[in-house]
């Protein structure tokens, strides 16, 4: 037995030495900004950066900011909600509105519910709410995995903290990432292979810490200069069916429970809720049953479905790529949903 333990210890030790070194590097450099606390998790001036977990970043920034700012207006959604700019939204809100963009990459209905519950439990106010939804978000009734999507422990009363930290450490150990990251740290150079494979990002961006709003004016400038829609970028705009296609129903029992909970919290807060069903490039219309359910729960006058074949989705100029629509579209949608308010 002793021999077995000694051999196993020796084998593990030899193997663990590089792992221990990497763990030390990981803790010191904290590439995903999940070990230490930061005043801001996004630095617009950085030469290049590692994509942070947006759920964690939004949640932690909200916790930090809410010590000094009394937010009462929230935008919830996935990265498709990023282009709903606070400055545009504020035009439709009462003057005393204090806005926060509480988004997450690949947001799920499950995590959105957690965010609404979290604000409620913390005693926050939700007077104005803009929910930017789509079929993909509505379909997700369980927590997502992966370092870019895992839910912030703060939203789950730290129940998933081990899983959360493990996910990031394992993401750091992914050889492709590790090589690119250490190469960048050692040389200070951003090489094409790093950005090509999304190991690091260096697309210029703006960020407002108070509202947690990200801006990509760089893309808009390129569009204005007619340099954006290159042949390569155009290749992502695939051909779509000519006839209206509908998504399969995604609001099932679990989704109904989550939506009812979200609705009851909004009701408690007497929130002015507006729901946008995003005009996605795929032109698939939200299933009629799902739309009817949302309208029945939140009120017909509060749910606005822009999915399917329409003026917005027909024109590729309204999109950066096949997934995200541009700020002028969001601006136009907000004009519609707050019209006659």
């Amino acid at each position, binding site marked *: 037995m002793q021999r077995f333990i000694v051999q196993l210890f020796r084998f593990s030790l030899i*193997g663990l030495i590089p792992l221990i070194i990497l763990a030390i590097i990981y803790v010191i450099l904290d590439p995903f900004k999940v070990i230490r606390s930061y005043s801001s998790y996004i630095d617009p001036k950085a030469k290049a950066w590692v994509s942070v977990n947006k759920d964690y970043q939004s949640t932690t920034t909200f916790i930090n900011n809410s010590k000094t700012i009394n937010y009462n207006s929230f935008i919830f959604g996935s990265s498709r909600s990023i282009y709903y700019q606070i400055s545009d939204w504020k035009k439709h809100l009462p003057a005393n509105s204090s806005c926060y963009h509480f988004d997450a990459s690949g947001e799920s209905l499950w995590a959105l519910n957690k965010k609404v519950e979290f604000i409620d439990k913390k005693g926050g106010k939700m007077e104005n709410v803009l929910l930017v939804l789509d079929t993909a978000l509505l379909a997700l009734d369980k927590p997502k995995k992966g370092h870019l999507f895992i839910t912030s422990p703060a939203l789950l009363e730290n129940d998933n903290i081990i899983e959360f930290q493990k996910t990031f450490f394992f993401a750091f150990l992914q050889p492709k990432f590790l090589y690119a990251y250490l190469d960048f740290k050692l040389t200070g150079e951003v090489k094409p292979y790093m950005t090509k494979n999304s190991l690091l990002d260096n697309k210029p961006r703006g960020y407002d810490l108070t509202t947690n709003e990200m801006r990509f004016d760089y893309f808009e400038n390129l569009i204005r200069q007619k340099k954006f829609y290159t042949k390569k970028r155009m290749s992502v705009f695939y051909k779509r069916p000519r006839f209206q296609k509908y998504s399969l129903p995604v609001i099932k029992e679990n989704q109904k429970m989550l939506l009812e909970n979200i609705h009851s919290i909004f009701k408690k807060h007497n929130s002015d809720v507006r729901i946008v069903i995003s005009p996605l490039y795929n032109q698939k219309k939200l299933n009629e049953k799902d739309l009817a359910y949302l309208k029945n729960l939140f009120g017909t006058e509060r749910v606005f479905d822009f999915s399917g074949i329409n003026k917005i989705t027909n024109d590729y100029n309204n999109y950066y790529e096949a997934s995200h629509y541009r700020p002028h579209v969001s601006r136009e949608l907000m004009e519609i949903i707050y019209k006659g308010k």
Partner: protein
Amino acid sequence: MLFNSINFAIFLPIVFLLYWFVTNKSLKAQNILLLTSSYFFYACWDWRFLFLLMFSTLLDYFTGLKMQDAKNKNSKKFWFWLSVIVNLGFLAFFKYYNFFIESFEAGLSQLGIQINPFTLSIILPVGISFYTFHGLSYVIDIYKDRIKAERNFVEYAVFVSFFPLLVAGPIERATHLLPQIKRKRTFNYTYAVDGLRQILWGLFKKIVIADSCAFFANEFFNNSVHYPGSTLLLGAIFFTFQIYGDFSGYSDIALGTAKLFGIDLLRNFAFPYFSRDIAEFWRRWHISLSSWFKDYLYFPLGGSKGGTWMKVRNTFIIFIVSGFWHGSNWTFLVWGALNAVYFLPLLLTKSNRKNIDIVAMGKTYPSLDEFLRILLTFSLTVLAWIFFRANSISHALSYISEIFSSSLFVIPRFAEMKKALVAIALVIFFVLIEWQGREGQYAISHLGLKWKRPVRYAFYYALILALCWFSGEEQQFIYFQF
């Protein structure tokens, strides 16, 4: 708790250390530790179903004793059937209730009769098919006077719920496992190292091979209408390796883990994809289940002793029941029936036991004849797996018809081509390692034993590195759902 999870990586060393350092003086204490840790292991999945496992264990324990002590045949028969009916009743309820109800409704609707069936939202208790079969083999063996009933409850409960085999087998026999549980175990260095090696190889099969293949198998099967026949064929091959890596990987981890506790479990896989005919394949695939059906179903039905009709009937029964055991879907039944069709010519020509040795034993390469036979058997297996993986029979048929269309000759094009090439390279590496190790209990059981320690360690570290590289996209073990 999954074998490929951090939780298990913490759980296993703790139980191992307690087993050999704290409870090693007493067999009773060791067995109590194994039982409590097994129940904890199971409760980590869903504690509510632990009561079902306990009930099943108690039922078989008491009916076993009642049969043993029965004063007449009728009384023995009563207790036997009570156990069989209750065990199969639970299995039928949890696994097949909705299937039967929905099939009944579909059948009536074909006749123009509409009913509003009462379906239930039933969660399938993990491992129910496995521990039910454990228990059944025990009561059948007592009924047939092959074994005596176990009077020590803890020892019997460990036999049913020993955590390495609890959720996905191998399906053990009381004659094999119970004597080991009753016997004092002493630590054996070589055996424990072998166990660790087998765990490592099992993890490699699961995380590196099965999960890499799963990515593409899922994509091609879930979106089969968008892909040409060539890509769908690739998808079927990916699934063929996914299910093998997944299930045999699980079995390797189970066997390796049991070895750490000085317990030898039944071998479940013996390089099935190197089989030269379908009969050999079934002697090498999920061995513990095949032999269970053979001993407790095929032989009682008369086996191959009767006339031709009886042989055909029994072959179809055993394969269809085996298919049905895997899940409540018609696809599994067709999969079973198709294998029966494959098997039948061998049985009728009495050549089903032609290939009982290891292929190309002692040689580096197979002969051309052997190679072609392996290729043919493999191709038949790939075809059958399409039914196993498809969502419905119509899905399987459309999948197969696309493969056998002119689009089979279209060059496959899909997203993540590079990733697919990596997966193909891994599968080739895997097949080569399996081929060289086919004479052992598992592929790397003898690989590198004569190498110098640094080289051997480097090989193991390379496997561990591969595990780290490919971890993060783990899929659930396929056989957990059965």
